[in-house]
C-alpha cells in the first residue's frame, strides 16, 4: 500500500492560467457558470473572459446574474444573449434588458435546474417532476400523471463549457468545495463538454481524503489557481 501511495499519477486534467483556460471557450458558447448569490462564483475565470477574450453571444446557464459579480459585468458588456436560470429580478439591469429585448430569459424552478444539471451530466436526457405542474412555467411542456399526481416533463441540461468554483483541487484534478459555495458547482462540473475550475488552492495528490472528494477528476478538464481569499 505504501508503494502504491508513492505512485506518480498523471490524469488528463490540465493546469493552466486563467487566460489560457478561457481561450478554450468557443464563441457564442452555451456556458454554465456556478454560484448562488455571490457565493461560489468563478470570478477570476469570468474576469479573464471579459478582459482577455472577444467572446460574446453567450447562452449562460446559472442560477442568477448577481449584481456586482463578473457574470453581471459580462452581461453589462452586452455579451450574454440568453440566460437560463431561476432568479433575475434582483438585478434591475437584467430586468431592463429583458424588457428592451436585449436578453432572452428562460426561467426554471431551482430544483428543476439542479436536477437538469445533474441528470444532464448523467446521460439522462429528460425526467418528470411535480414542480411547476399546473402553473405558467409548465405552459407548453408535456405533463403526465403517475400514481394520481401530475408531473411535468423537463429536459436535462448540458453545455459546451462550465466555469465553476471549488475550494481545493489536488494535482490529479479532484475537487472539494467550501460550505454553501458548493451549490451548483459539482453539478455543472458533470454536465459540460469542457469543465474549467477556479480553485483557491492546489494541493499534492493524496492530500484529499478519497471519502471526502466531491467531484472526482473524471469530471474536470482544466484547473486554474484563483485568488487566495476564500471567496476567490
Amino acid at each position, binding site marked *: 500500500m505504501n508503494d502504491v501511495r508513492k505512485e506518480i499519477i498523471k490524469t488528463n486534467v490540465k493546469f493552466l492560467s486563467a487566460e489560457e483556460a478561457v481561450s478554450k471557450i468557443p464563441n457564442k458558447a452555451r456556458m454554465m457558470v456556478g454560484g448562488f448569490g455571490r457565493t461560489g462564483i468563478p470570478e477570476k475565470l469570468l474576469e479573464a473572459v471579459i478582459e482577455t477574450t472577444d467572446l460574446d453571444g453567450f447562452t449562460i446557464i446559472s442560477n442568477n446574474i448577481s449584481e456586482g459579480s463578473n457574470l453581471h459585468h459580462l452581461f453589462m458588456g452586452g455579451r450574454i444573449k440568453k440566460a437560463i436560470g431561476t432568479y433575475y429580478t434582483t438585478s434591475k439591469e437584467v430586468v431592463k434588458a429583458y424588457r428592451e429585448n436585449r436578453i432572452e430569459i428562460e426561467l426554471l*424552478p431551482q*430544483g428543476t435546474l439542479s436536477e437538469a444539471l445533474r441528470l444532464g451530466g448523467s446521460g439522462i436526457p429528460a425526467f418528470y417532476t411535480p414542480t411547476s405542474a*399546473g402553473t405558467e412555467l409548465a405552459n407548453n411542456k408535456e405533463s403526465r400523471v403517475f400514481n394520481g399526481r401530475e408531473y411535468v416533463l423537463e429536459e436535462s441540461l448540458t453545455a459546451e463549457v462550465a466555469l465553476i468554483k471549488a475550494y481545493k483541487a489536488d494535482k490529479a484534478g479532484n475537487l472539494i468545495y467550501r460550505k454553501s459555495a458548493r451549490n451548483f458547482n459539482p453539478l455543472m462540473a458533470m454536465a459540460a463538454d469542457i469543465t474549467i475550475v477556479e480553485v483557491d488552492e492546489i494541493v499534492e495528490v493524496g492530500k484529499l481524503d478519497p471519502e471526502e472528494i466531491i467531484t472526482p477528476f473524471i469530471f474536470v478538464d482544466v484547473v486554474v489557481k484563483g485568488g487566495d481569499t476564500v471567496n476567490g
Partner: protein
Amino acid sequence: MVDISIKRYIAWRAAQELQTGVVNLGIGIPTMVADYLPRGKVTLHSENGILGVGPSPAPEEEDPDLINAGKAPVTIQPHSSFFDSSLSFAMMRGGHLDATVIGALQVAQNGDIASWAIPGKDVLGVGGAMDLVAGAKRVIVATTHVTPKGEAKILPKCTYPLTATKRVDTIITEYAVFKIRQGKLMLVEKIDEISFEDLLTITGASYQIAEDFRTVVREQAMLELV
C-alpha cells in the same frame, strides 16, 4: 404598513405549528419564525445546500462562503451538513422536509397558492418556491390577512399565477388560522379581537368552522413576544 408586532405575532403563531423536525422558512414573515422555534428541536434547511442553519453571525464572523437562500450571512449548528443543490432539492421534492413556512400573494380555499408573480409584470424570478411548495410535507402559509390595499388574500380561486395547486395545508394570519382538510377550507382558530362577521368580510373565500375550532386572545400572546 403593517405593524412589526403584527408580523411578529404571525411568525410566533406559525412557530407554534413546528415543535420538531426539519423546516424551510421563506423570505419575509416566515424568516421571523426562526426566533420563536423551540431551541434545538427544529432544524432549518436552506435550499442553497445547508441543513442546520444557525443564527446570524456577528459582523466580524461573517463568512462569504456561508449564506442562506436569502443571501444573508448565517452560521451553522453542531449537526449541520453541506451538500449540492441537487441533494438539497431532493430533500424538498422527495418529501423529506417536515414543513415549509412561506408567504403568499393569494391562497385559494382548495389549497392553491400564488406567491411568485403578479399578472402583467415580467416573470423573471421563481427560485426554489415551487419546489418547496410541491415537496414539503406541510405547506404553512404565514401572511397578513389582506393586502396593503385591503384586498382579500384568501380567495375562492387565485387570480395571480400559481406556485402550485392544492398544496397548502395551513394558513396563518394575524386574525385566524385555517386548515385545508379534504380539500375544504376550515377555520380552526380566530382571535377574540375580531368578530365572526368581520372575519368573514375580510376573507374572500368561504369556509366552515372546524370541530376543533377555538378562540385565542392575541393581545396576551403579543405581550410575551420580543
